[in-house]
């Protein structure tokens, strides 16, 4: 390839794949579809997709920002702790479709089943994860730096009483710069099973951002970062504009942020904690600055700005 390729009537291309969206990459592009794909395909166009995301990721080159488009109605089951590994640095896995047509990953068989992200700068977008067993330990586990999770949803199973233990967790070291934007865990009715422990559990977060998330479930904590934060190990995070609602009656706050995550900013969060009047919905100890977080802890009341000066 040399220079712009002049195609008829004015179209010219320099070789960047035209993906039809807003994605800019100079890397390779692959397609995955469990319905029409085979891992013996080359995966290079929607008519010859791979069958599994793991296979698509395996074809990517580290550090090149390769993309894997997962086609609508793609479905996979993840049945072990190594069932899905995003291990290539910079790979971007983007789901196509909306609602139930989004690519779906059901975690089943073992509570240790998970989507493990070990490649730094990996990016996951528009994927739907489901509980296929009760009390999954970590649904998505991030153990690399600078990972982005955008518009990911987790759905529990009220029919079978499967509820995720912790939907998203980062490892105790090396997961700095994680961005979680637009995550949804919404159980309007308690799905039964074992109560969720954490919606999002960040260990030693540094330079992390959690924003625009909606967590509504019977959980101990919606967003949590205390246990596992070594002194001085975290800091400078942004927790902004999240909507948190608790359906159960546990006394734990919906946001708890460690004093060791120094210099964090917790702002513009909306917390509805209707069954625990008198409890602190927000505890940030002495590590964070708080701005304009609003709470309601009695149904039918008007939210007020959070006054809590909490201690863990």
């Amino acid at each position, binding site marked *: *390839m*040399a*220079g*712009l390729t002049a*195609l*008829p*009537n*004015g*179209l*010219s*291309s*320099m*070789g*960047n*794949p*035209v993906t039809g969206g*807003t*994605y*800019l*990459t*100079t890397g390779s592009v692959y397609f995955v579809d469990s319905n029409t794909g085979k891992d013996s395909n080359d995966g290079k166009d929607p008519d010859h997709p791979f069958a599994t995301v793991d296979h698509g990721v395996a074809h990517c080159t580290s*550090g*090149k*920002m390769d993309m894997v488009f997962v086609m609508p109605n793609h479905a996979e089951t993840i049945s072990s702790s190594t069932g899905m590994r995003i291990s290539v*640095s*910079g790979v*971007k896995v983007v789901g196509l479709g909306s609602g139930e047509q989004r690519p779906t990953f059901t975690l089943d068989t073992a509570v240790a089943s998970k989507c493990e992200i070990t490649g*730094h*700068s*990996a990016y996951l977008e528009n994927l739907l994860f489901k509980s296929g067993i009760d009390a999954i330990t970590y649904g998505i586990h991030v153990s690399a*730096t*600078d*990972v*982005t999770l955008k518009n990911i949803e987790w759905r529990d199973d009220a029919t079978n009483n499967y509820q995720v233990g912790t939907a998203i967790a980062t490892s105790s070291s090396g997961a700095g*710069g994680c961005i979680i934007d637009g995550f949804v865990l919404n159980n309007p009715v308690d799905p039964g099973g074992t109560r969720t422990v954490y919606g999002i559990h960040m260990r030693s977060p*540094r*330079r992390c*951002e959690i924003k625009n998330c909606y967590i509504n479930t019977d959980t101990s904590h919606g967003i949590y970062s205390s246990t596992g934060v070594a002194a001085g190990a975290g*800091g*400078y*995070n*942004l927790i902004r504009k999240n909507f948190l609602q608790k359906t159960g009656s546990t006394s734990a706050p919906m946001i708890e942020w460690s*004093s060791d995550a*120094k*210099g964090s*900013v917790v*702002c513009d969060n909306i917390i509805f904690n209707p069954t625990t009047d008198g409890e602190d919905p927000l505890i*940030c100890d*002495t*590590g*964070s*600055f*708080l*701005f*304009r*977080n609003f709470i309601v802890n009695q149904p039918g009341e008007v939210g007020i*700005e*959070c*006054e809590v*000066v909490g201690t863990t």
Partner: protein
Amino acid sequence: MTLTDYPNGVSSFGLPVIGGQFITTGSIFFVDSNTGSNSYNGKDKDHPFSTLSYAVSKCTANKGDVVYAMPGHIESMSSSEALNVNKAGVKIIGIGHGYLRPRITFDTTASANIAISSCDVTIENFVFDASTAAVNLTGLVRVNASDFTLLNCEAMLPTSEELVYGAVYMAATSDDRMTIDGLKVAASASSACDATYSVIHVGGGDGHKIINSFISISNLGSTLAAGVINLSSAATTGPQGVLIDNDIVVTTASSAGTCLINLTSGSGSGIISNCYLAHADDGEDTHIGGTEQLSEFGIFQVYVNNVLGERGFLFGSTYVSAT
């Protein structure tokens, strides 16, 4: 020229298809320190240049030329103006996210920097990494031209040395309309920036915008009153028509006089709105400070905080007063 229909739905009016979302009729060049060579023509991703400086030299001013820096590109600034963007209208765009965003490092020379010396330049999606600097630095991106835009970039501050005059430094010039949009600065070490003077220093010009940015650092060092954002001018009238909107600027520094936005002598006018400002200097009120009167600025929905673990209050309320 009519629309051309290609297989699988692509149609074109004749503009280069670059795979992104903006339009240019200028030339396109690629840069990659890992696979590139300045003996290449730089015109496609498989034959990139190896340095940004060389790519800029191949651009033509005022044509809307674009330089793409590829994922994992890394380039070290070891002298003053090691990268001098001196072609008007050039866009330098990084491809990638996280740690794979193109990265500019600053190392052994105090004056190591990027110079913006022509108008209408844009730099987007880069990391300016001074975390391993071995000397005190005097500004990472030094702006000496109007209409410069810095979009969605991150700066990593020194962990052991000083950063004098900031990540972005505009001298006391008449250069106007600088836009800093989406800058992230999150100190990378608990002892970072022991003597950082400011993160953004605006010394002159009018019509600047500093918006949608998140700056959280551990310390401001010895000259705390300089401010994280420093609107300073030696001229009689400083920057006029400045917009500071939707920024979060905090530091865990607790020394007396810590200042987040500084309006020093000669500072002009503008709007400061929808911002959260915090330091840990309980008892001090200098969130927006300096010797210039605040009356020249409109302050809207600015919240301030001076105790870690507590909530902020509306600037100007009975809880925290203006300077």
